[in-house]
């Protein structure tokens, strides 16, 4: 939140800054009065009783009204900021639909039909409308540098949130609503590109990956299709079209695996397939017992899905 990278994130930081200034003044005032009293009115042994002052109605009314006025002003500022930061999408179609699963993110671009997972690409300098849904329990989508967080509630049509990035880069986020065993490793990466680069990324993601050419890749594809992988995962252009796990159509182009817990390298992918529970205990995916050669083929095939 300290490095805001969008108008709405900056807006919130400004609000927070001013609330801290006002709060800071109040804190200094209160603590100052306390410490002054502590020093000035400290009793000494042998002191008699001080003047018994039971109160001062005018003063009491004053310190009731002054904070009320101050808070009324803060309330008006809050209202206008709410409208500015979270405007009603007014029927506009979302640019990105993110669905929270335990414990990863399903990501769809409805205009282009692109489906991916965990890593969300956006163009810089544009307000992007996110629709947020949940597949099982409540999750919460939070990328602090880009804007506010919103809950994802199962069975509800979906909250919306506007996010944007002024500069290209990778922005980290996380699920903010406790959602079970692996809530900690339900991390988000938002990757902001210049417009042309984003268009190129979208075009590439919309394409069906090239059919495997080498013998090893063909073997890998065959293992994938013949194993229970296809019960949960989808790869466009093949028979695998299940939605229970992350879409793997272009998994080779992603930076991390397991919603951010490990880097996407061939060794890590191999270990993940053999025993995901050793890496992310509680994850829904079971481990598989492949021979080293089969594992190599499968990893090579998945890595080729760029």
């Amino acid at each position, binding site marked *: *939140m*300290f490095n805001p990278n969008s108008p709405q994130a900056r807006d*919130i930081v400004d*609000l927070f800054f001013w*609330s*801290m200034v006002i*709060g800071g003044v109040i*804190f200094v005032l*209160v*603590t100052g*009065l*306390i410490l002054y*009293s*502590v020093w000035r*009115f*400290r*009793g000494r042994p042998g002191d008699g*009783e*001080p*003047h*018994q*002052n*039971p*109160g001062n109605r005018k003063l*009491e009314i004053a*310190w*009731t009204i002054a*904070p009320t006025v101050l*808070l009324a002003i*803060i*309330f008006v500022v*809050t209202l206008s900021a*709410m409208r500015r*930061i*979270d405007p009603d999408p007014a029927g506009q179609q979302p640019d990105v639909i993110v669905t929270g699963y335990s414990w990863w993110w399903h990501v769809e671009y409805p205009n282009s039909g692109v489906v991916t997972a965990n890593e969300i690409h956006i163009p810089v300098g544009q307000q992007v409308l996110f629709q947020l849904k949940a597949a099982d329990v*409540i999750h*919460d989508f*939070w990328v*602090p540098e880009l804007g*506010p*967080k*919103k*809950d994802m*509630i*199962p*069975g*509800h049509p979906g909250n919306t949130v506007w996010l944007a990035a002024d500069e290209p880069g990778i922005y*980290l986020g*996380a*699920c*903010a609503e*406790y959602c*079970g065993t*692996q*809530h*900690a*490793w339900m991390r988000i990466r938002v990757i902001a590109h210049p417009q042309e680069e984003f268009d190129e990324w979208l075009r590439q993601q919309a394409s069906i990956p090239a059919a495997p050419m080498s013998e090893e890749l063909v073997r890998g594809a065959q293992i994938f299709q013949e194993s229970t992988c296809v019960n949960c995962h989808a790869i466009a252009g093949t028979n695998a079209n299940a939605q229970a796990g992350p879409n793997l159509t272009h998994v080779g182009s992603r930076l991390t695996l397991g919603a*951010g817990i490990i880097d996407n390298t061939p060794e890590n992918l191999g270990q993940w397939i053999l025993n995901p529970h050793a890496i992310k*205990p*509680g994850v829904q995916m079971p481990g598989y017992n492949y021979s080293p050669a089969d594992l190599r083929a499968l990893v090579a095939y998945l890595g080729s899905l760029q």
Partner: protein
Amino acid sequence: MSNITLAPEASDSLPALSKPTGLLSWIASVDHKQIGIMYMITALIFLVIGGVEALLVRLQLIVPNAQVLSPQTYNQMFTMHGTTMIFLVLMPMLIGFGNYFVPLMIGAYDMAFPRMNALGLWLLVFGGLLMYYSFLIGQVPDGGWFMYAPLSEQPYTSHRGTDYWALSILVMGIGSTTGAINFIVTVLTMRAPGMTLRRMPLFVWTTFATAIIILFAIPILNAGLAMLEADRLLGARFFNRGGGSPVLYQHVFWAFGHPEVYILILPVFGIISEVIPVFSRKPIFGYEFVAGSSFIITFLSFGVWAHHMFASGLGIGFNAFTAFGTMLISVPTGIKVFSWIATMWGGKLRFTTAMLFAVGFLITFTIGGITGVTFAIVPTDWQTTDSYYVVAHIHYVFVGGTLFGIYAAFYYWFPKMTGRMLSEKWGKIHFWFNFVAFNLTFFIQHFLGLVGMPRRVYTYPDLPGWTTMNMISTVGAFLSGLAHLIFMFNVFYSLRRGERAGDNPWDAWTLEWATTSPPPPHNFDELPPVRSARPLWDLAHPEDPDWKRGH
């Protein structure tokens, strides 16, 4: 006006074949003082348990990717820590003090319903045992202390943890409700002659207000728990798909949950309103405003619950309503803080340990109050909610606020309860240790939240600054643990070696100091006349009594 004798035969009023002795004299007791002490002992035992859970949580977070606890165990620990501290430590501790001191402060010989009072205590004890029995069968609650549906429901939680959690809180909730009725009836009907409502000590006022909140808030929780269990065990659909709504659970839980915050802080406002005047040697500044603001808080506390749900997407109207209520409720709280400072102003301050904790409370609670207002600024809440910023805030309110107030109460009233003073030397060591360690633990967590660390994560990526901040917090937590141990040591030490207290060691002014320490079973042999809120001041200063003073 002559002295009035009240109910001298109370000790013989319960028919018994023989007077129980030893442990049985406690277990079978319906005496409000014994019951109060048993509440406090229960709370102290669970404070140790909840504290160990907190230290395990902090130990797991000392470095990124630590493997002290498994994710599952970590989730059980933070769930049980929160549940234990709220329901089995802070609430019983405050109810315990209320039990012990409300009858004494209004000059009564007991609570209105002594047997129901005992029932409330034992429902709490057995509720606590039921909660912790879940460890013995290895199915520990792990859904967080607010147990959001549908995570807490089938099929996402198929073990019995949620059931132990819900049923034991239901049991305790029934106990708290009986306690609330008892406090309300006691305050309304058991006051000594002359003790009009406008002369009641402020601790009695705030406990009375708290009882009203309990009476209206806890049944909401109990209804919610019954609905949760109906979903889990009977296949109902209150909170899950197919007709129900997870948002309904949030409404039900927080409609109880936010009033609960005031259940845990209002009695403390009362304690501070007793301690600061006595050790400033002045009456409370603006008695009517301090008492009245408690009732404004009582009323408003039922209109702010949805500020826990700003990220749920309730729409701008609902959010604005709750934001407004939340800002409004800080006004009566501010009135109290200003009144306490004005009470100190022009006084002759005595820095006993009780006073140190009261002043420490003022400072840390002010921080908690200021960060509280930032949650009412809805867009700010959208960044800070469910992050470590909230964790910092609630601990500033519940530890820097409630627990510091409880410690002030212990140092202030321990002499009355036991006849011996708590050691002031160890008390001061305890205070400074606790004050520094507390701030070391929790202040830094504000920043952890602001840089993006969500709450309730068993570990975190090694991002710049996160490790250092978490390590500082963990070190602070262990020092805090040590501070609490110093307190426990002080209690055991002072029970045997403490200075004899006498009836009124602090020259205090309310009725509990007008009897022996500890008081006899019937509390008072005779009562002084009550003609103001400070009867013992009037007695000691016939030339300048409060009742002659205009306001």
